[in-house]
């Protein structure tokens, strides 16, 4: 009896936890069923191709014939004899180095302007964000091509002032800069995130700083920037990842030319895969890009502790 009495609560507990586990299992199952459309898509269209591309990166695969295993040959060729690899990597790094800070700076400036309390500000916001709805699409790139061509609109406007323009996208000295400008101009989503971040900054901070007689510049550097640093960090990381994968601009506007001056890594990868029928080689390139982007992101996170300020940490820098 005694023993039974001792065991009863334990058994009940066990039953209870079993029941709990069962119902939570059932809940989980229901959850998985609900997300299954996305999950299936993710597994079949993202995870599976990723696994496949890893395998393919060790093969020679022409797309049209079955792949043959070549071990690390692709990687060896990329690092040893491929001048296009080094060229495209260089072009991409330059692109990232310039376009990311420029875009951050530009979108922050626009966000600050749109954060002012003016009459009809919502209208301005909509108008300025509107082009971003078209996004980084083919249409925008095609527009850019027509604007900055030798006989494009930009040179046409220049000619009103008696300036003879160059073929901005067909001249190797200016082509990459034109693409950087394009990327900067596509500031919409970055700007919106900045704007949301600006709205989060409590007004009291500015008010008390004003009482203390702080100038506008001082308020910007000592309130706005630190309070905005997590948002800045977010935009920076996404910006770097996105810029490394820039494809549309190079593909549509310049096709990597002239003479490889805008030969972005993603375009080089595409050429290898779909133009020169070297899918295995292209897969290896993709994995190298993944490692590079992962490294850059890791460095970003490491460095972030020195400049990103989180209010939840009690104002202490990590």
């Amino acid at each position, binding site marked *: 009896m005694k023993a039974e009495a001792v065991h009863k609560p334990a058994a009940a507990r066990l039953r209870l936890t079993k029941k709990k586990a069962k119902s939570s299992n059932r809940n989980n199952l229901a959850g998985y069923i609900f997300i299954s459309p996305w999950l299936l898509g993710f597994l079949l269209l993202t995870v599976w191709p990723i696994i496949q591309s890893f395998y393919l990166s060790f093969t020679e695969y022409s797309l049209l*014939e079955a792949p043959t295993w070549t071990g690390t040959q692709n990687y060896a060729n990329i690092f040893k004899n491929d001048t296009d690899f080094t060229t495209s990597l260089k072009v991409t790094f330059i692109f990232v180095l310039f376009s990311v800070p420029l875009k951050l700076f530009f979108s922050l400036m626009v966000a600050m302007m749109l954060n002012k309390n003016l009459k009809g500000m919502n209208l301005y916001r909509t108008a300025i964000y509107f082009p971003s709805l078209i996004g980084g699409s083919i249409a925008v790139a095609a527009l850019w091509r027509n604007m900055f061509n030798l006989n494009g609109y930009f040179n046409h406007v220049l000619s009103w002032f008696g300036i003879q323009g160059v073929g901005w996208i067909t001249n190797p000295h200016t082509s990459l800069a034109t693409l950087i400008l394009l990327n900067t101009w596509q500031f919409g989503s970055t700007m919106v995130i900045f704007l949301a971040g600006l709205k989060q900054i409590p007004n009291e901070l500015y008010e008390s700083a004003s009482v203390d007689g702080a100038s506008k510049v001082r308020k910007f550097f000592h309130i706005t920037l630190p309070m905005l640093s997590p948002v800045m960090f977010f935009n920076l990381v996404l910006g770097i990842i996105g810029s490394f994968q820039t494809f549309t601009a190079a593909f549509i506007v310049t096709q990597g030319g002239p003479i490889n001056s805008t030969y972005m890594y993603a375009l080089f990868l595409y050429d290898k895969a779909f*133009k*020169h029928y070297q899918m295995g080689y292209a897969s290896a390139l993709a994995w190298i890009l993944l490692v590079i982007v992962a490294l850059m992101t890791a460095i970003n996170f490491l460095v972030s502790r020195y400049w990103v300020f989180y209010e939840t940490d009690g104002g202490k820098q990590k």
Partner: protein
Amino acid sequence: MLAATLGLTACGNGGANNGQSNAEGKSNNSDPNAPVKLKIMWQGADIRHQAMLKTQEVYTGLNPSVTFSPEYMAWDDYWKKLPTLAASHSLPDVLHMDGAYIQEYATRGTLEDLSDIDLTGVIDEKTLDNLKINGKLYGIPISRNAQGMAYNKEALEAAGIELPKKDWTWDEFFDFARNARAKLPEGVYPISDTDTWDFYEYYQMGYGKGTIIQEDGKKFNLDKDLFMKFYGIFAEFRDKKIVPPADMVSAFKENDPQADPMASGKVMTRGATVGSVGALEQLMPGKIDVVNLPVGPEGGGWAQPTIFLSVSTDSKHKDAAKAFIKWFVTDKKAGETYGTNFGIPIYDDVYNAIEPSLAPKEKLGKKLYDTAKDKALPFSPAAAGWTEWVDNYKKTMDAVLFGQKSLEEAYNDISKSGNALAEKLSKSSK
């Protein structure tokens, strides 16, 4: 109700037939009157697109069970899109192939052997044999094509410049450029600069040094003396502004009203083929005339079929596709509809039937063909596996155009990669 029953029976029959025909191999796997939708793709300028669409309408009019799902685009986009379709086994049933690419597609097993289409009396055996790849016919030639040049007759005459003459030599071509420079206004150029391998190859072949890519890509043959001489002349032309500056050259886009070298009014001459000169004439009606490519002691340019219709190996309607192609090539009504938009129709009876009613601009293609054919040399496309080298040739020469590379360096780069590729290909085939 009756219809439903019939439908069911038809399905049952279809299934049975399928099993049978698979066993037999190639015979019809459906009855000829079942509705078929053929996917069809081609490249070209708008004038060709319209003609091709109309031709399909005519065919559907005659064969109501066959309809088309067409897709068409410009040359560059076409060859960008095709590899991805091939890779995903979704090539259209009927597709436009070109001499420059057919080897690549045929040797990778994406195209059906069409030797069984009976073309006796339509295309002579010798022509067909010449077009076979490893003994098989992967595309039916639909036209006679030729490479030549178009020139702005109106502007040249207005400037008092002597017009190019049939069978002009390379020296005469270069002299034409030098003389015209003096008479043309600033910002207008007699000829354009060149960065693609094929234009130089015409020169090398004309001087008897043969093609650059030989033995199906296993041998590489770039003649250094001719290479240096040819591009040396263009270097001189660049200095003397006989050819446009490099950034203008790379902005040119053929058949684009604003960016076409000739239609934009910037250049007096450019390359043209029988099948494409109509598009240029449409941009500058009545202003242009044609001449063959400059010739060397051996000849120059080419004149032969380079435009094909092929059938994808993945097609589910191979018989319908073949029937359409045969009609396209042999039927007068078809010929009347597409006219000279692909070149001179390959079947003489078709061409003879449409010749009297050709508009003057359409006769331009015929004139180009007739001018080019006397001195023509064989058409020599890049072999399978050489597309990357072809791209790099252009990039290397662009670096020369922009003054970032010396000619010597360019020669070394191009011949190094060419030799390496030839060696790789000859190893892998042993």
